[in-house]
């Protein structure tokens, strides 16, 4: 598979503080990559660069022109009805049919005609996913999109993302700090530390993945030790 994303010698500094350090990154077409790391390790900066929102960089990045993103907050425009938010920025007249198809895919077609303020957190995040996917991206960037959701909703939306990825076949870069989420969804997990990709792990487990499978537990332990989290008691990170 050819690469969807290629970054070579990527650097970014904010006021003299280096956040990304000569970073190399390849993401194959259709590959699901999770990016783990402590807060402040530069993972969100990397995502913003790939999104084209930050151009003050050193090095070189090649990304597909058709790419879109979903963020931790849904970032819907409160003054546009849900369906108008979904097709915002698409060329031509706003196409309600297209928006409803995308909303149907994320399971909330019935909310097309309401204001965003009436949505629950999980619903708003689904709309944000529909808005990203209606553009048929070759690369989908997800910046902790489940971070603000409660545990039950998070599980359902993670499941939804897995299904949408398999249907659309786009490459996904998921930024997260949740080790289990990364292992449940990704083909490959990257661990970032101090502006570099410090570790890389290919996840060869069959889908859908089982949290309790011994292989899963082994991989989780390895990722946690890379992240500097050691387990002293069963299930209790110290």
């Amino acid at each position, binding site marked *: 598979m050819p690469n969807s994303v290629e970054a070579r010698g990527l650097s970014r500094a904010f006021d003299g503080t280096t956040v990304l350090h000569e970073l190399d990154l390849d993401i194959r077409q259709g590959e699901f990559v999770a990016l783990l790391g402590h807060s402040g390790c530069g993972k969100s900066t990397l995502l913003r660069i790939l999104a084209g929102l930050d151009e003050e960089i050193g090095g070189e990045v090649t990304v597909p022109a058709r790419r879109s993103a979903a963020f931790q907050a849904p970032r819907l*425009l409160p003054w546009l009805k849900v369906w108008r938010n979904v097709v915002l*920025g698409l060329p031509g007249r706003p196409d309600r049919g297209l928006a409803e198809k995308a909303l149907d895919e994320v399971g909330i077609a019935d909310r097309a005609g309401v204001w965003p303020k009436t949505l629950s957190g999980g619903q708003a995040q689904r709309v944000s996913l529909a808005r990203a996917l209606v553009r048929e991206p070759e690369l989908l960037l997800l910046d902790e999109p489940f971070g603000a959701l409660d545990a039950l909703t998070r599980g359902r939306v993670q499941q939804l993302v897995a299904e949408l990825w398999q249907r659309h076949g786009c490459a996904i870069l998921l930024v997260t700090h949740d080790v289990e989420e990364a292992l449940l969804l990704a083909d490959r997990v990257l661990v970032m530390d101090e502006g570099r990709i410090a570790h890389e792990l290919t996840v060869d487990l069959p889908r859908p993945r089982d949290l309790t499978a011994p292989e899963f537990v082994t991989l989780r332990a390895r990722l946690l030790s890379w992240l500097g989290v050691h387990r002293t008691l069963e299930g209790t990170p110290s």
Partner: protein
Amino acid sequence: MTTNAPVLDTTVDRPAPSARVTVRGTTKAGHRFTVPRSVRRSAGPVGLVLLWFLASATGVLPESVLASPVDVVRQAVELTRSGELPDAIAASGRRAAVGFLIGASVALSLSLLAGLFRLGEDVIDSSMGMFRAIPWVGLIPLFIVWFGIEETPKIALVALGVTYPLYFNIYGGIRSTDAQLVEAARMMGLGRLGLIAYVILPSALPGALVGLRYALSTAWLALVFAEQINADAGLGYLMSNAQQYFRTDVIVLCLVVYALLGLACDFAVRILSRRLLTWRANFEGEA
């Protein structure tokens, strides 16, 4: 009843129950009589007018100080029948409208330039801050020197009074646009014009509407000041004429008309706000 079996003392080691609160449903307050909101809202003003009437009728308030509300109403009917009042309202309304339109256009252009462009901000905003420090009513003598005593200085004063509140509120609204929304919209492929139309201007709208309310009330206020300058038509003319003959009833009538016109504008903006801002989830006040 007594038993020898050991009694389990359940009171030990258990915290005393704290005070409890009962929440009663409010959906069916059926038997309780509640005064409709509209009645409650008008009770204050109606009461004050009633007090005024009583004070005049009993002679506590002599007519040379303040005419009774009955006289004011009589004047209103008379002047309306003679056509003087409608003509005055039309003349004043025209001044307010023209002045407002000029001021609003200036404020809108300046605030867009200052809000959207860094260069515009540097050139315009500091100047506006400086000009605002000048009390605009104090410019009347200068306006007379520049524009004479005809319609122009009156319209200019209204325009000036309108410009500041609109400018600062629209500019502030543009600059308080959520950067995260701008980023998301850019990510979704909106260009510069799209961003302005779909993100920046809508998020400046609530501020702009607040500015509009201030601007309209300032417009009427400016008009009252402006019409003191040698007016030959309008409510100010009617008032300065009445002053010469100590007709407090006509003066009060003109003040009431000014107030009603201001209220009507405010009401229109509130209706407009409700229409335009339905997307906002706002606190609506306690019942």
